[in-house]
């Protein structure tokens, strides 16, 4: 016993030590600790965010310098809080709260005290900052806009929040990140990669040289510039035309699917969301729930498409062989569904395809629509065929654009109606409103523009996109360079396009002709309802217009949707024709029209439902 006592103690000590070391070095050990190590400080070198140019190489978004006051909680030494707060123009409780929260986030990592100071503030503070240990000024670059338009497309950047920090280890507090639009979609391209220098520190927090002799350091990678497909001039012009009007406009180059303009009204100046006033301005915009300036109507609004949708039904009927261009339907100033009469504004008489389209005859398309369904033994089968054709135009589903938001619209199918009416209790007559684009169908202005582009191309389209090229290579995703075929054969487009061209020559759009440019288009006047304070009320019809030009060699296809603008040709048609002229000719010859469109507003219409008084809709005067 007495001889073994010491030996066994030695062995016991050995086991205890190894046990404890296993706990520390094997169990508690976490491999990635460079940033957690108190002995290593990371110093970041931020590259400049990439510029954004329009399709003609005109600068839209650049950068301006800004200065953040940063601090590292554990390095902060006691200071004259009041004096410091006065210097920075912040109040003391907020300052103390910020310090407390930063300490919780991390005592060793930098946090932002005051973001985005101007150059003038920086000059004033620069000398005094050295009196406050633990605080320093970090230079950053903020966005600078050479245009006051396209806020919905360009998007904005803002400081990363706690969620971003958790989700993406790349970001460090105080950095900026794209929130919407192309800033979000092309965040990594525009942002580049920050460089990092690791500095070895001692426990007094003094720098004692590069960590591992700089082996882990990286150089910043410049953010790449991008060129977008927007035409800055067209976009700006379109936004001016939207003055006082709500709605969305999308213009596409049908030959490539490039989005030339994407306008939402009302909109806001992108510069509002830059700098220290950002959050104040943002709240103001965000909480305007009546005109909703941050709600991008060009891709998020899903109204019924109205009469432009008739062209689609004409195409499907031709493809299915249930009519030919000379097939005639009689219009009784309307048509009958069972014993119920539905109205038509075309004037009545016998209609073939050409006059059916340019006079926008409801009876003609109701007849056409029925014929599609009559071809098949059951409504269900007819429905499937119809739905398939519609969806091949990018309707009723997400288009897959490079805009990080959007809506799918709606092409109602079997399942939709089975749920709505009950299985087997609906027929083509039940859903006849879809014939004139007024029923359950819904489409965003972007989808309508894309549909028009597909018609302009006589049967195919490219996924609409906003990116033209990235950096110097120019390569973009192949998703945007491969055409999508629709299910309609090429020859069926000509009669429909002829009808659309006649809309301008003789039809509903004859008041908006442009000298020397042949346009094909289709008006739409869409009934609509809203609920205000729980009361359903009908408002003045939406004004819708789709068009492409020139007819034989289309350069632009667009959809214009103006809320409560009444006739399709009234607001939407005029705006569309001005945009087409602007894009193709570069200048406007019809100055009177231009002046009228720039000045006319629809504010009086928008005020009606909120006035609390009875009001008239669809007033003739304007």
């Amino acid at each position, binding site marked *: 016993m007495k001889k073994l006592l010491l030996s066994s103690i030695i062995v016991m000590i050995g086991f205890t030590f190894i046990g404890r070391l296993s706990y*520390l070095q094997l169990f508690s050990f976490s491999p990635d600790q460079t940033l957690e190590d108190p002995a290593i400080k990371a110093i970041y070198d931020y590259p400049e965010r990439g510029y954004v140019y329009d399709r003609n190489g005109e600068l839209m978004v650049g950068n301006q310098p800004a200065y953040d006051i940063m601090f590292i909680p554990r390095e902060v030494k006691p200071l004259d809080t009041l004096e410091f707060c006065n210097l920075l123009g912040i109040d003391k409780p907020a300052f103390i709260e910020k310090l407390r929260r930063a300490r919780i986030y991390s005592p060793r990592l930098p946090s932002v005290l005051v973001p985005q100071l101007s150059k003038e503030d920086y000059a004033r503070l620069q000398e005094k900052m050295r009196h406050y240990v633990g605080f320093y000024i970090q230079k950053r670059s903020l966005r600078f806009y050479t245009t006051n338009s396209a806020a919905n497309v360009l998007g904005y950047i803002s400081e990363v929040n706690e969620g971003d920090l958790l989700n993406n280890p790349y970001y460090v507090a105080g950095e900026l990140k794209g929130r919407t639009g192309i800033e979000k979609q092309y965040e990594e391209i525009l942002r580049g990669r920050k460089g990092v220098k690791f500095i070895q520190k001692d426990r007094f927090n003094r720098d004692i040289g590069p960590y591992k002799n700089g082996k882990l350091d990286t150089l910043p990678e410049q953010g790449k510039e991008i060129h977008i497909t927007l035409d800055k001039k067209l976009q700006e012009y379109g936004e001016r035309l939207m003055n006082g009007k709500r709605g969305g406009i999308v213009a596409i180059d049908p030959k490539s699917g490039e989005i030339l303009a994407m306008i939402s009204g009302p909109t806001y100046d992108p510069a509002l969301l830059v700098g220290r006033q950002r959050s104040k301005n943002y709240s103001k915009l965000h909480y305007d729930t009546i005109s909703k300036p941050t709600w991008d109507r060009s891709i998020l609004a899903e109204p019924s498409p109205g009469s432009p949708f008739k062209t689609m039904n004409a195409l499907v009927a031709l493809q299915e062989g249930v009519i030919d261009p000379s097939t005639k339907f009689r219009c009784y100033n309307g048509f009958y569904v069972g014993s119920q009469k539905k109205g038509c504004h075309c004037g009545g008489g016998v209609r073939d395809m050409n006059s059916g389209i340019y006079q926008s005859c409801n009876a003609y398309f109701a007849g056409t629509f029925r014929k599609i369904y009559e071809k098949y033994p059951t409504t269900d089968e007819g429905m499937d065929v119809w739905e398939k054709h519609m969806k091949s135009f990018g309707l009723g589903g997400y288009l897959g654009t490079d805009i990080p938001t959007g809506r799918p619209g709606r092409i109602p199918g079997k399942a939709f109606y089975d749920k709505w009416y009950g299985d087997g209790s609906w027929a083509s007559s039940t859903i006849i409103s879809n014939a004139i684009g007024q029923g359950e169908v819904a489409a965003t202005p972007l989808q309508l523009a894309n549909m028009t582009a597909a018609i302009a191309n006589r049967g195919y389209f490219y996924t609409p996109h906003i990116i033209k090229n990235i950096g110097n290579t120019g390569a973009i995703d192949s998703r945007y360079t491969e055409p999508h075929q629709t299910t309609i054969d090429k020859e069926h487009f000509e009669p429909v396009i002829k009808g659309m061209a006649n809309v301008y020559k003789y039809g509903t759009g004859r008041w908006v002709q442009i000298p020397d440019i042949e346009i094909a288009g289709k008006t739409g006047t869409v009934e609509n309802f809203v609920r205000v304070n729980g009361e359903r009320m009908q408002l003045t019809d939406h004004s819708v217009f789709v068009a492409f030009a020139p007819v034989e060699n289309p350069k632009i296809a667009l959809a214009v949707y103006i809320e409560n603008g009444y006739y399709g040709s009234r607001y939407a048609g005029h705006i569309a024709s001005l945009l087409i002229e602007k894009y193709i000719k570069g200048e406007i010859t019809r100055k009177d029209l231009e002046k009228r469109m720039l000045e006319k507003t629809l504010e009086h219409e928008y005020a009606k439902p909120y006035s609390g008084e009875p009001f008239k809709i669809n007033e003739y005067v304007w």
Partner: protein
Amino acid sequence: MSGKGLFGRLDWLTVFLYAFLVLIGWVNIYSTTLSDPNASLFDFSTLYGKQLFFIGLAFAGIILVLFIETNFFERFASIFYIISMVLLLGLFVFGKTIAGATSWYDLGFFNLQPSELAKVATALALAKYLSDIQTDIKNRKHQMYALIIILLPALLILPQPDPGSSLIYFSLFFVLFREGFPLYYLGILLTMVVLFATTLMFGTVWVAIGLAILTTLIFIFKRKSTKIPILPLTGVITISILFSLSVGFVYENVFEQRHRDRFALWLSLEKDEKKLEEIRKTIGYNTYQSEKAIESGGFFGKGFLEGTRTKGDFVPEQHTDYIFSSVGEEWGFMGTVTVILLFSFFFLRLIYIAERQKNDFSRMFGYGVISILLIHYFINIGMVIGLLPTIGVPLPFFSYGGSGLIFFTMLLFIFLKLDSNRLKDGI
């Protein structure tokens, strides 16, 4: 006598282990104290350069020890002891104060720490006294003398203040136990430690309840086989409870706040997680940093000269008492386990050598050497890895410092010299 010379009779395995430990220690001191990578290894203005010089001195010490007549140590043990006691006393008058402890003599080129010398002397004196033909370990009076030999230097060192070094002398009890000192003293000592810790953790009431349950269990299981000594058992329990009661009093009134904080940290007495964290980062700062440094090493370590916390000097006193944390950070689990195994093997080898001595003095001195080295190793690494409260003692052969290295080396090689002579003693 064997035909081999002195060097042939030396236990080369031990020498090799010793040299290996010194080498590993120096490599880590180099890594910890290196500031200019271009400086020469022999630059004596650097700490690692100085340590190299001390290693040279230790080597000279080895040669000296090996050429001294074996009998010399036994014969002059008492003189050494008296000299070192005088030196310890002299500190009260002539001592030089470093870091708050008056433990050094300033010799100009070198600060001598007599408590290190006293360890060698005490081990020699104890061995000499116990091996005396007239000493009987079973005799109470002789036990008392042996205790005085051990406790005198401990008492002289305590007020320097250097409680760590005083604690070292208690390890010499192992020599007594080896020589037949009744083991129940060890039992009493352990019981006291357990009672102390449990009282702090659970309070006197729970300790009393625990003792009651324990007694009941003894009654139930031993009732049939043996007669229960009721009177002594009641006595033991009464004393235990009294002791337990006194613990609270001593803890609150005799200990200072810094001591209480160390215990609070060690036994996790503070239940408030936030306050515990606070203590860990203030009072327990050294241990906290050293644990973190060791932890960050992982299995393979960060590599030689790559330890960020080592380089950043985050662990205070890393080249002295906390040298093991550098091993942990740079060499990882592989390194720390290697060092633990080397030390364990080294100690077991020394026990083997001690047991093969035919001369009582040699064996007893051997046990003294082992005890002293072992308790340094135990307290130091236990503290560095956060198992024991902070007590400042160096890690033998590893820690930076001349006195430590030289006297540990002398201690070891006097024993190896005695061992090389064991066959002669038998004749």
